[in-house]
């Protein structure tokens, strides 16, 4: 079995996702959204899931949280163990106790992720009162602490504010405060900075990184932005078409990319020395349809390194360095070809 993490298993992971496969069944077709996804998240670690739209990043997060609709989505194999407890086998009743208490989640669009009819103080208090037996006053006090913690200026007067009175960055901080109000062990951040402008992005990422250190939680950071990953993630997992194609420590993957898709992503970033008239490089072709079973490497049809053998069977996961795994039979060729890339040289 070529299960990447079973061989690199962390001593005591907070979350251990093993061999997770999931299908969306429609009236006339079955889409395989996740195919044998395995990874683990260690104590106090920021792990990033990277990939383009539709590759299964959010579906992975929603599956862990149990937020996918009951009808339509079907887990066909695998488990998601939170400190050894399989979340996929946990009843909805129990999941309600876990969500918000042991796992917090923040979403992409802070403009619509807060309920417009309640004050932010109430929404943060809701998390606390849901999971802790505390008075209204104590919950409000805690909500105030949380607003301070996420560095909202003049927090006391913001408690009574409605979401529409706050800027996007402020709202995302409120979301973070809501998600962290009960000190969860794990925070799932689903594209937390995509809807924010660049300066605010940096502030929010710094905040998440600092909070990770201060409260000692683990973070799954979902993004399609390699810049975000480079800034804060300890380890990264590159996803493509429902599979994790490469994973390893962030600096390792940037310095030594060993999968055709990772290489493609890095080449499409503008380098430090790029000039205005240089065209951005793109990956030719488009993401494959997932309603047919793909036998070989999912990326092979778009990959410049591909050969006949890539299409024949699923490449075995191979370990290139401590904790750095790839599902690419041409890993050496990729490394070789990428050695003159600006980003790779910057990290190497």
């Amino acid at each position: 079995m070529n299960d990447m993490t079973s061989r690199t298993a962390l001593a005591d992971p907070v979350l251990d996702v093993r061999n997770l496969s999931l299908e969306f069944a429609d009236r006339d077709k079955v889409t395989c959204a996740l195919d044998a996804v395995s990874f683990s998240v260690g104590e106090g670690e920021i792990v990033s899931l990277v990939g383009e739209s539709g590759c299964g990043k959010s579906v992975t997060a929603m599956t862990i949280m149990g937020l996918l609709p009951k009808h339509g989505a079907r887990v066909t194999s695998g488990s998601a163990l939170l400190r050894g407890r399989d979340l996929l086998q946990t009843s909805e009743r129990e999941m309600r106790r876990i969500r918000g208490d042991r796992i917090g989640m923040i979403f992409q669009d802070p403009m619509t992720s807060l309920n417009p009819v309640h004050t932010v103080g109430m929404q943060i208090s809701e998390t606390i009162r849901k999971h802790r037996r505390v008075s209204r006053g104590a919950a409000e006090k805690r909500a105030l602490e949380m607003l301070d913690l996420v560095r909202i200026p003049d927090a006391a007067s913001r408690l009574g504010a409605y979401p529409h009175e706050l800027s996007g960055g402020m709202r995302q901080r409120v979301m973070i405060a809501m998600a962290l109000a009960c000190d969860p062990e794990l925070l799932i951040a689903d594209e937390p900075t995509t809807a924010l402008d660049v300066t605010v992005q940096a502030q929010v990422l710094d905040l998440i990184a600092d909070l990770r250190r201060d409260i000692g939680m683990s973070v799954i950071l979902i993004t399609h932005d390699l810049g975000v990953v480079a800034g804060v993630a300890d380890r990264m997992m590159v996803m493509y078409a429902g599979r994790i194609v490469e994973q390893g420590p962030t600096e390792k993957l940037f310095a030594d990319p060993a999968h055709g898709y990772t290489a493609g992503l890095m080449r499409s970033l503008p380098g430090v020395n790029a000039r205005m008239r240089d065209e951005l490089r793109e990956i030719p072709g488009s993401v494959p349809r997932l309603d047919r079973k793909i036998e070989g490497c999912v990326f092979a049809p778009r990959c410049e390194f591909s050969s006949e053998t890539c299409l024949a069977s699923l490449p075995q996961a191979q370990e290139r360095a401590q904790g750095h795994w790839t599902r690419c039979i041409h890993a050496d060729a990729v490394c070789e070809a990428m050695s003159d890339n600006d980003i790779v040289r910057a990290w190497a």
Partner: protein
Amino acid sequence: MSVYDQVSATRGGHGGRISAAAGYLAANPATTICFGVLLLFVLMAVFAPLIAGDPVKIDPAERLTGPSASAYWGRDHLGRDVFARAVYGSRMSLLVGFSVAAIATVFGVAIGIYAGMSRVGGAIAMRLVDAMMAIPAILLAIAFAALMDAGILTVIIAISIPEIPRMVRLVRSVVLGVRQQPYVAAAISIGTGGLPLVWRHILPNTLGPVLVQATYACASAIITSAVLSFLGVGTSPEVPSWGGMMADARSFFRIHPELMVYPGVLLSLLVLVVNVLGDRLSDALDPRKMVRGSV
């Protein structure tokens, strides 16, 4: 006053939102006027015995006489005081209007939310609603009124029944939209579920459209009750009602058109102010419009 002052004025917990909405309403003269007119109607209904004389006393000697000190708007074909009947008639209209709005809202919201949240139950509920919508409301009301004993309660129930399906449809469609909102997913992600989710996150976000629909239900119930009285169904003829007054005045329209104009104008005015207030209320309760509107 700057935007920021306005914003801080809207703060302050639960009371803040209501008082801010009230402030928004008061800032608009049309709303104030409509509210004033509605208040006059309510006062008229409550204090009818202090304002007007006996609305049912028949005085054949005085029939169809013009305005006098004892009957400001003259007397009808049975010699009854038209002003007194018009004043007492507002009781019927307001009682039916508000009761129907309340009943349609309570049942419509409960069934509508259930239909929006449950797939199977929702499908069944919606087919029943479709079936009820296929029958013209006025016919349904007449049928119910005919089946039950005459009285104002009968009229209220008869008019409420066709109003409920409209409210159910509206609420369900709003719930289907609200359910998809990211803030509902966010609420679920902090562990909220079941009834608290519906109560705190879904219900409040349906209130705007529901309130507007409730005022429309109120206005349409006032008209329907007038139609029922006009047709002579529901309440007995001696109970003063604007519809009944118009029915009585119909035969004398050529010689005494004012007998029909008085109740007609009152009816139109009441329905108009209720509808305008409904529209304004829906704007006022939308937290996003509050700030924009008050700048």
